[in-house]
């Protein structure tokens, strides 16, 4: 598949990543095939990512999808993987705390951990951060 390099400031909604975007520490910030949103663009900027590779044809010059194709309502592969991952993570944490019973302290730690791990699993922007 052809790839196009575009600057982070030119990202538009609906562009699809050709490659994983990896941070210097090795963490994958966004996986290949992610359908980009304004939130993603803000996140990339925050991490100092200057340009990304997108799948050719999904950029600004992309032809509009032919009517009746209907693909836009289906989740992309990346979105599907994230949903799966989130469910797995949630299950693992809930199981982890299943011994805690009615312990209020553990309920608090549980809730705080779920909030944070979810944020990481989905690479969502910090709470309160607005998309530009």
């Amino acid at each position: 598949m052809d790839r196009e390099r575009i600057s982070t400031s030119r990202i538009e909604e609906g562009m699809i990543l050709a490659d994983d975007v990896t941070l210097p520490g090795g963490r994958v910030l966004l996986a290949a095939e992610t359908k980009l949103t304004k939130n993603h663009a803000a996140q990339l900027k925050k991490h100092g990512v200057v340009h990304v590779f997108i799948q050719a044809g999904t950029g600004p010059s992309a032809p509009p999808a032919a009517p009746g194709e209907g693909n836009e309502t289906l989740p992309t592969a990346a979105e599907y993987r994230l949903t799966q991952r989130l469910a797995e993570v949630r299950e693992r944490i809930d199981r982890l705390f299943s011994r805690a019973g009615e312990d209020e302290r553990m309920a608090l730690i549980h809730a705080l951990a779920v909030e944070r791990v979810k944020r990481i699993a989905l690479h969502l922007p910090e709470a309160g951060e607005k998309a530009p």
Partner: protein
Amino acid sequence: MKPTPRLLEKIEELPTLPDVVARVNQLVNSESATAGHVNAVISRDMALSAKVLRMANSSFYGFSRRITSITHAVVILGFKTIRNLALSAFVFNAFKRKTPAFDVRAFWIHSLGVAVTAAAASEELGFSIHDREDVFIGGLLHGVGKVAMSEYMPEDLEAVCRMMKEKDLSFAEAERVVHEFDYAELSGALLDKWSLPPGLIAVVRHHLDPARAGEHERTASLVHLSDILSRALLFGCAGEDRVTPISPEAWATLRLDRDILGRIMDRSLVEFERASAFLDIL
């Protein structure tokens, strides 16, 4: 509490500290040691020398100038960090057998998570700088008994894992049934065999029940909390898929609340990413 005969017998079978690590440890505990003395010991071990330089030049510390001599590395990193590195490198490489029931690599990642969380928590909770270096190594070695078991007592470890599943027990509870001691006691006894500082031994030995750590209760409570948070944040795997509730005494000793816990977790998540290079250096 005296170690059971069974525990003493097991400890006998576990390795002693290699000469170079033992000597670095002695120097760190001595009043009169200089960076030159530490350099003389470390330079004779090429593998350890390389690790010290890699550590000094890693992004973990982020010094702007390239460090090329061991003496310089000892001066900027400090004696304790060098001791901790020598000790961690030995332990990490001595105990790494993977068994079907226990993933050693995942356990080391969990241990690094405990170390990082303990260091982050010690800052949030206003521990002294002196304590902060100690809690990192306390966290990293809190479960050294578990990895020692995987290498030297694989049958015991298998039996514990089976018992844990069959009777729905925690790892430590299953151990007490299988061999009359738990991994915290085993870890403490091993560090004692290696002549490590009494404070570190007490923290590791009592991290499951910190109220029994005497004068080290606050530090033991910190490692106890960090063990739970490292599991909750899914740093690696502790060898069991459920967590035992936090000790109410530890909660009170550390004066925990929602804000502090949230800050400790946020900080640990950031630091953990930075520290993950640590295991590669070992």
